[in-house]
């Protein structure tokens, strides 16, 4: 499933596309919510791996505006819960992700992104 945690880790890998190739932009998405067990420590640990601005943007694209635009210095439980929901409970099932730089489109179907490239696009 393309959860937003996964989306936050993906960049375009078309040959020569090396700047402004992250984050990919969601398009025509169909989402599904799946409850996951809340573990504040886990969410806190994930924070160190995240690009906050990319996450906030991606969340907006799938219709969630609960996160503040700037990464807060203090994370209270309430915010960690929102983060938990955004990162781990929103699943993109269908749609696509587009590279902001080269505009390559990576389709998502059955919850799986297809990021294979044609021969001439491989680096």
């Amino acid at each position, binding site marked *: *499933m*393309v*959860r937003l*945690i*996964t989306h*936050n*880790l*993906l*960049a*375009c*890998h078309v040959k020569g596309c090396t700047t402004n*190739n*992250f984050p990919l932009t969601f398009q025509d998405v169909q989402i599904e919510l799946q409850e*996951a*067990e809340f*573990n504040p*420590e*886990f969410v806190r*640990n*994930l924070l160190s*791996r995240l*690009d906050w601005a990319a996450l906030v943007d991606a969340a907006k694209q799938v219709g969630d505006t609960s996160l503040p635009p700037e990464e807060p210095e203090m994370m209270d439980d309430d915010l960690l819960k929102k983060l938990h929901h955004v990162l781990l409970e929103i699943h993109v099932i269908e749609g696509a992700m587009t590279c902001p730089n080269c505009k390559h489109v990576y389709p998502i179907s*059955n*919850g*799986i*992104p*297809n*990021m*294979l*490239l044609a*021969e001439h696009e*491989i*680096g």
Partner: protein
Amino acid sequence: MIPTPDLSHLTKYDYEHVYEPAGMSYYLALQYTFLLLDALEEEADEIKKDPPLICLEIGSGSGCVSAFLGAILRQLPVVQIATDINPRASLCTLKTGTRNKISIDPITCPLAQPLLNRLRHSVDILLFNPPYVPTGSEEAFDAQTRGDISGAWAGGASGMETTCCFLKDVETLLSDRGKCYLVALNQNDINGICTMMLDEFNLQSKIIMQRRAGREHLFIIRFSRTSNM
């Protein structure tokens, strides 16, 4: 004992298109998978002592190995990502995760290509049971571009072409405490691999398990930044 993941949801069709190597019995192919499962089980205490945050399996196929790792980590929260060049394999991996109540995020892509930037020095457990059957380079290249069942086994020259590409990315991906587990054959020149990983990437190698299966001699090599773990 950690039970082998439930794969009963996979159909004959799934097997034919995901993991039924031509010219090799399915039974033998399974020995590679099982050796990796056994190695992970042996490492389980070590792995759980310092719980991983991000795990990545390359070439997840049926999803059996990732589901098994998930079972070892049961109750510990973790992000498990699995890639494969075969879209049918990604789908099987997703289903196997669901069936075994393990959350696995599959991505259809070559190696860790779209993840290399963002997962730089972030992967705590990295797994790969690569295609290993020696074939012509062209055959391996075609298998890689087609992304079908032949990619499960066509390994190119010495069966090492995909593995060699993978080895170049290991250091980039591993976190400070990261461990990588790779399935290899004796024809793959195990000593050569270990020396290369030390000389070029300053990574330590350790053979943590080996076994004979038919005419093959299989190994699990573990790469890490320090040897005393």
